[in-house]
C-alpha cells in the first residue's frame, strides 16, 4: 500500500454475507454504513469499517457491489475482507452454518489497524453522543466497553441524511437490552410493567435500571435487583406517604445480613435497613414529596452462585402504597376489570375517600360502616342503602373531626416531625428460603474467588470495544464452529478475568439496533423459531448452563478462558481485501494478518 492514511483511532468490525439474513439486510446495512460514515465525518473521527464478507453466496452480488458509500468517506475508510467458500468449507458444520460469525469477526479484528476495535453488527446505528465520545479519544487500554442496546422499528430511512436517521431512531425506540434483561419501553422511555407484575398497574411505581424482569419461577412472581436499582415513584393523589415492600434476601447474601440503602439521585443515603430472610418493610416518604426517583443500593452480599452468573442479593415480591388496597380480584380469574374492587383514592388527616366498584353483573346495594378504636371496640356503627341511580361505582368520603383536650400538639417538645424524613422501617422478618439447597445455590468455591463480577453481556455481539492489544491478548472470540450464541458473552468474562475491566457507557450514549424479522438473531419473539431451526440443522449451540459453568470456572481460576490458538482470526491465511472510501477502489489484494 502507498499513501497510508492516518492510522484509524477506531476500527469497526462486522461480518456479513449477501444472503438477506434477517430480511431487508442490505437496507439495514446501508443505514449502518451511512450513519457511521456520516457521523465520523461530523466529528472528525479517523476510523475504518472492516466488513468481513464470509462465504459469499454464489449468484448474488458481492456486498461491495450491493452497497453504496461516498467517494470521499474520509476520515473513514471501508475495507472489504473476503473469506472464500473454500476456507469456509474447511470448518466443521459448513453446510449448516453459512456464516461463522465469530470467526469472521476475529478475521476482521486480527486485521484491524485501529488503536481500538469495536466488534458490532451490520444493523447498528450509534447515537451522536457516542460518536462524540469516540472522537474525544478518551478510550483506555485495559478496558472493555459495553453499552445497552436500544431496538428501533424497522422502517428506518436508509438513504436519509444522518440527522434524520438518528432522529428516527430516537423516536422509534421499542425496547432496551440492559444488563438485567430485555425491556419493552413505554412512551415515557421507561420500561413498561409486565402483566402480573409485582406492583399494580398505574400505581405510580416504575422500575428503572437495576431491576431484573419478573421471575415467575417460584410460588409468587418476584423481581431480583442488581446492587443498584432505580425506582420512579409518583404518589397517587392523597395516598398515605408510605410504601410497603415485601422481599427476601437471596443466595448471594451469604450468611450475613444485607443492608438496603435508599439513595437519592445525588448518591446521598436517605435511609437504610439491615435485612435477613423474608421481610416486610415500610418506606416512609416525606409528606411533601409526591414524585421521586430513588435508588435501592445493596451493601454486603455479592456471593457468586454456582448455576447463575448473576449476583442475587435481594428480591421483591410486591411494592404497594400503604392504605391502597391491592385490587380485590375474583378468585375465578384474572380479569380484574370485571371484579368488584374497593380502593383508597385518597387519605389524609381529615378525610378518606374510597372508590367502590361493582363487579360485572353486580350492583352496589348497601354500605356498612364501623368506626373502631385500636382495641377493636366499635365507637360508631352505621349503614345505608345506596341510591338506585348509583349502580356501578360509588365514591365514598369519610370525614373525621377531632376534638383535642389539654396541651396543643406543637408544644410537646419534639424537634422535627418525623413525617418530613425518609424512613425505612422493618415491619416483619422471618427465615427465608434455604438457598444452600436451591437451584441458585452459592458456588461451593465462592470464598476462593478473588474477582467475581456479573457483567453486562446482554446484546454484547452488537457492541464490544477493546484496544487492539487487548483483543490480541484474548485471541478474539472463541472459534467454536457452532452457532454463535453466548460466545460473545464468554469473551466479556475472559476480558474481566484477564484484568480488563468493563465500562458500561451510559445514556445518552446509545446504540440503536434496527429491528428485523424474527428468525435471525435474538429477539424475544423469535427464540422458539430459532431453537427449532437450530435443532433441525443438528448443529450444537453453547447451552446457557455451560456458559454459567465457564463463568464459574473463570471466577474460580481468576483466569481468562481463551478458546483459540495463536492462529486465531485466520491469522495464517491471506485474505483478499479491497479498500474504498478514501481513494479510488483498489484492486483486490491479499494482506497478511497482523501478528
Amino acid at each position: 500500500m502507498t499513501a497510508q492514511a492516518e492510522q484509524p483511532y477506531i476500527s469497526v468490525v462486522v461480518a456479513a454475507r449477501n444472503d438477506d439474513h434477517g430480511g431487508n439486510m442490505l437496507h439495514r446495512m446501508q443505514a449502518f454504513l451511512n450513519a457511521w460514515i456520516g457521523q465520523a465525518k461530523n466529528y472528525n473521527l479517523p476510523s475504518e469499517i472492516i466488513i468481513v464478507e464470509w462465504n459469499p453466496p454464489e449468484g448474488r452480488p458481492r456486498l461491495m457491489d450491493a452497497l453504496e458509500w461516498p467517494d470521499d468517506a474520509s476520515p473513514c475508510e471501508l475495507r472489504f475482507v473476503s473469506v472464500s467458500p473454500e476456507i469456509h468449507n474447511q470448518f466443521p458444520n459448513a453446510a449448516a452454518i453459512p456464516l461463522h460469525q465469530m470467526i469472521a469477526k476475529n478475521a476482521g479484528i486480527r486485521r484491524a489497524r485501529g488503536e481500538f476495535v469495536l466488534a458490532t453488527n451490520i444493523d447498528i446505528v450509534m447515537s451522536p453522543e457516542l460518536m462524540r465520545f469516540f472522537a474525544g479519544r478518551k478510550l483506555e487500554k485495559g478496558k472493555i466497553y459495553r453499552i445497552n442496546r436500544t431496538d428501533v422499528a424497522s422502517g428506518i430511512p436508509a438513504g436519509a441524511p444522518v440527522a434524520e436517521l438518528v432522529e428516527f431512531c430516537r423516536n422509534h425506540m421499542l425496547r432496551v437490552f440492559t444488563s438485567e434483561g430485555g425491556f419493552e419501553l413505554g412512551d415515557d422511555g421507561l420500561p413498561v410493567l409486565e402483566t402480573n407484575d409485582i406492583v399494580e398497574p398505574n400505581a405510580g411505581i416504575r422500575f428503572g435500571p437495576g431491576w431484573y424482569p419478573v421471575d415467575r419461577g417460584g410460588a409468587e412472581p418476584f423481581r431480583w435487583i442488581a446492587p443498584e436499582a432505580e425506582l420512579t415513584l409518583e404518589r397517587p393523589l392523597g395516598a398515605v406517604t408510605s410504601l410497603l415492600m415485601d422481599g427476601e434476601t437471596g443466595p448471594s447474601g451469604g450468611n450475613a445480613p444485607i443492608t438496603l440503602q435508599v439513595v437519592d439521585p445525588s448518591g446521598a443515603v436517605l435511609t437504610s435497613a439491615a435485612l435477613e430472610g423474608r421481610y416486610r418493610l415500610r418506606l416512609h416518604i416525606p409528606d411533601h414529596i409526591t414524585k421521586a426517583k430513588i435508588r435501592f443500593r445493596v451493601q454486603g452480599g455479592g456471593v457468586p452462585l454456582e448455576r447463575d452468573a448473576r449476583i442475587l442479593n435481594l428480591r421483591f415480591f410486591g411494592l404497594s402504597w400503604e392504605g391502597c388496597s391491592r385490587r380485590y380480584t375474583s378468585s375465578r380469574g384474572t380479569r380484574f376489570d370485571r371484579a368488584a374492587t374497593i380502593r383508597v383514592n385518597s387519605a389524609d388527616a381529615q378525610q378518606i375517600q374510597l372508590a367502590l366498584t361493582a363487579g360485572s353483573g353486580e350492583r352496589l346495594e348497601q354500605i356498612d360502616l364501623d368506626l373502631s378504636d385500636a382495641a377493636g371496640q366499635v365507637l360508631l356503627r352505621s349503614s345505608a342503602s345506596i341510591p338506585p341511580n348509583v349502580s356501578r361505582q360509588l365514591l365514598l368520603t369519610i370525614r373525621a373531626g377531632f376534638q383535642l383536650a389539654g396541651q396543643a400538639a406543637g408544644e410537646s417538645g419534639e424537634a422535627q416531625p418525623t413525617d418530613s424524613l425518609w424512613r425505612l422501617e422493618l415491619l416483619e422478618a422471618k427465615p427465608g428460603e434455604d438457598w444452600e439447597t436451591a437451584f441458585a445455590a452459592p458456588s461451593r468455591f465462592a470464598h476462593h474467588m478473588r474477582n467475581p463480577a456479573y457483567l453486562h453481556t446482554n446484546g454484547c455481539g452488537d457492541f464490544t470495544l477493546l484496544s487492539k492489544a487487548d483483543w490480541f491478548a484474548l485471541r478474539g472470540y472463541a472459534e467454536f464452529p457452532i452457532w454463535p450464541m453466548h460466545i460473545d458473552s464468554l469473551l466479556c468474562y475472559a476480558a474481566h478475568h484477564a484484568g480488563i475491566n468493563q465500562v458500561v457507557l451510559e445514556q445518552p450514549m446509545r446504540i440503536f439496533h434496527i429491528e428485523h424479522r424474527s428468525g435471525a438473531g435474538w429477539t424475544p419473539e423469535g427464540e422458539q423459531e430459532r431453537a427449532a431451526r437450530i435443532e433441525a440443522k443438528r448443529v450444537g449451540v453453547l447451552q446457557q448452563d455451560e456458559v454459567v459453568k465457564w463463568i464459574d470456572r473463570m471466577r474460580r481460576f481468576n483466569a481468562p478462558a481463551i478458546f483459540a490458538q495463536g492462529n486465531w482470526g485466520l491469522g495464517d491465511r491471506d485474505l483478499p481485501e479491497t479498500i474504498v472510501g478514501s481513494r479510488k477502489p483498489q484492486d483486490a489484494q491479499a494482506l497478511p494478518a497482523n501478528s
Partner: protein
Amino acid sequence: MPVGGHAADPRPPDAEGPYLSVIAASRNDEHGGNLLGRTQVFVEAWLSQAKRHNISSELILVEWNPPQDRERLAKALRWPADTGPCRVRIIEVPPHIHARYLHGDNLPLYQMIGKNAGIRRARGKFLVLTNIDIVFSDELCKFLAARKLESGKMYRIDRTDVGEAVPVSAAIDDQLAYCRSHVLRLYSREGVYPVTAEGFREIEQDDIVRPNGGIHLGAGWFPIERPQTGAAFRWMDGEAEILIDVPGRGAVLELEVEPGPGAGLEPGPKELSVIDWNGAHVGTWMVSGRDTLHLVIPPPPSGKTQCVRLRVPAGGTPLPHDHRILDFRIFRCELAGFASWKSPGASSLTAMRRSRPTLARFIQVTRASGGPLGTARAAIRLLRRRGADIFETGVECRLGHGWLGVEDAELEKYRWVSKDAQLMARVGPSQSFAIVLEPGPTLGFQPFTLVISAASGQVLSRIAVKGVTYAEFSVPHPVGSIIPLIFSTEGGGTPTGEDPRPLSFRVFGFGHGTAGAASPSTAEREEWIALTVDSIAAEIDWGSTYAAERKQIEAMGKPAYLHTYACGDFTMMAREHWFDVRGYIEFDGYSMHMDSMLCYAAEHSGAREELLRPPMRVYHIEHGIGSGWSPEGQNHLFNRLSAKGISWVSNEDIAELISHMRNTHTPVIFNPPGWGLADDELPEIDPVAHETEVMAGKV
C-alpha cells in the same frame, strides 16, 4: 530477564540455540524427602546422557522462592567441571514475586508458574518439561540425539517408578542398571500398575487372565472392573498387548469379548483383529455379541514370551462423559485347554457290544453298496477306542459351535451335528483323521457330501456319506499343529421328523486316521487362525444406551484419549506449541490436573500426542511422601485445602474441559499473554561457570 513483547509468533531467539531445553522447577526445601539427593541424580544423569549422546541442550532449573535459610541449588548441588553440549541455567523467581500470590504461605512452590517462567526463557527448538527426580533411559536419549523430533507432535511416555536408592554420583550405567532392576510400578496411559519382579504388570484379583496361566497383559488395558453383577472385565482402546508364553508347538488362545461403544454405535458386528509378534495382521473376527473367540497360535520363533496385539481397526468412537475410548470389553483371556478323552476302561467286549447297532448298520450299508469291507476293521477300531465322548482316546480336540451334546443311549453313543460345525484338533503322526457318521433328519436321512475345510476356506476333503459311513481324510498340516476343521454338507434330502433342532448328521466316532504320514513337502506353513466358537447376545446395546447423545458423539469425531498419567514428568513439544498454548494454567491454587489440561489444550491446538514406547523410558525415583493416591487421601486433601481457602482444579473441571474441547474442536487456554512472568526480571546463573547475570532485555 523480561521477555516482554508478548509476541504472538515466538521464534527461537537465535538459530544457534540448543536443540532441546530440559526444564524443571524446584527449591531447596526437602520437599518429598531427599530432595537434594534426587535432584543430584537427575542433574548428573541428564548431563552424562547429554554428553554421551552429544545432545545439544540446556538444562533449566527454575528455583522458585528460594528458602532464605538454606543454600541455593547452585551451591547445594555438585556440578561437573565440563557439561559438554549442555548448558546449565538456574533461573530464580525471588520471594517478592512469590509474595504476589494469594496462598504463598501454604504453597511455597508454584510449580506450574515456575515451569512457565522456564518455558518463556527457553532457547531450545524443543522443550521437555520434567521434574527433578527423573532419569531418562539410554534409548530415549538416543532418540533425542537423533533429532527426529517433529513440530505438530506432543511426545509423552510412561513413567517407570523405581526404588529410592538410585546410586548418587555413580556412573550413569550403574544408575540405569539400578533403575532397570528396581521397577516398582508403571504410570501408563490407561492407569497406574504395580510391576512384578519379572517386569510384568501384576495380575489383579478376578483378572481376565489367570495367575500362572502363561499370559500377562501388556500396554493398552484399562484397570480391571468388577461390576456388581456379571463377570469382571477390562476395557481396551485401539490396541492392547497380550504377552504369552507360547508352547513350542503352538497354542490356542481363548478370549471372551464384547464390543463396547468405542467400536461404534451402529448395529452389526464389530471388527477385532490380531497383530502377531512381527507386527503383521494375521487374523480378524467379526464380533456381534458376547463372543468366545479362538486364536490358533503357531509355534513361536523362539521360546520366550511373545507379544500378540488385539486391535480394533474401526474403533475410537467417544462417549459424552467418560473420556476413555471403550472399544472392547474382554472378560477372559487364557490358553485353551484341550480335551483328551481317555477310555473309561471298559473291556473291548463291552465296547464292541455298545457299538453293535452302529456297526450293524455300517456293515449293512457297506454290503449293499459293494464297498470294501476292509474299512470295517478301521471303523471297529475307532469305535472301540472311543473314550467317554465320541473321540478316540488320546486325540486332542475342542468342539466349536454346531455340536450338540453327547447322547449316550444304552447301545449307541453319538453327537448330533447341526451345520457348519467347527472342531479344533491337533494333528497326529498320521496327519489324517477318521470319522464315523450317518445322515440325520434335517437331510432326510439321505446320502450327502460332507465337506471338510480349513479356516481359510480351503477344502481338505469331500466325503460321500450314505448311511453309516467311515472315512479318513488327510490334512497338509504338520504333526502337532492345531487346526480348525469346518464341517459342512452338500446334498441330502428334505428335512423329516419333528425334532425342531437342525440335525444334519450324527458322528459316532472321531479320531486319528490310520493312513501313513503325508510327505513333509506337502506340509503347509504354520498359520494363525481366528475362529468364533460361540456367540450369545451382547449384555449391553450401546446404540440405544447412547441414542440421546448420538448427535453430540458424532460431532466429536474421533478424539484422542491422552496419556496424562504423570504427564508433569515428561511432556515434550516444539517451542512454538508451548507458546501457542501459553504454557500451563497460572492458577493461584493447588497444583493438580494443570499438566493434563495442558496436554489436552496442546492436542486440540494441533500438537498430536505420540507415545514413546519401551525401551524408551523415564525412570522416577521413589520418595516417601506424596507418592500414593487414594480417594480418601484426595478428599482429605480437599478438606485441608478448602479450610485454608485454597482452590484447586477439580476432577469435574478437568472432565468438563476435555468434553468441551472435544465438542468444540477448540483448545482452552487460561493465560493472558504475560504468562511465564514475561514482564519480570529474573536473575539467572550458570552454576558451572559460577556466573551471575541479571539479563535485561529480550532473550
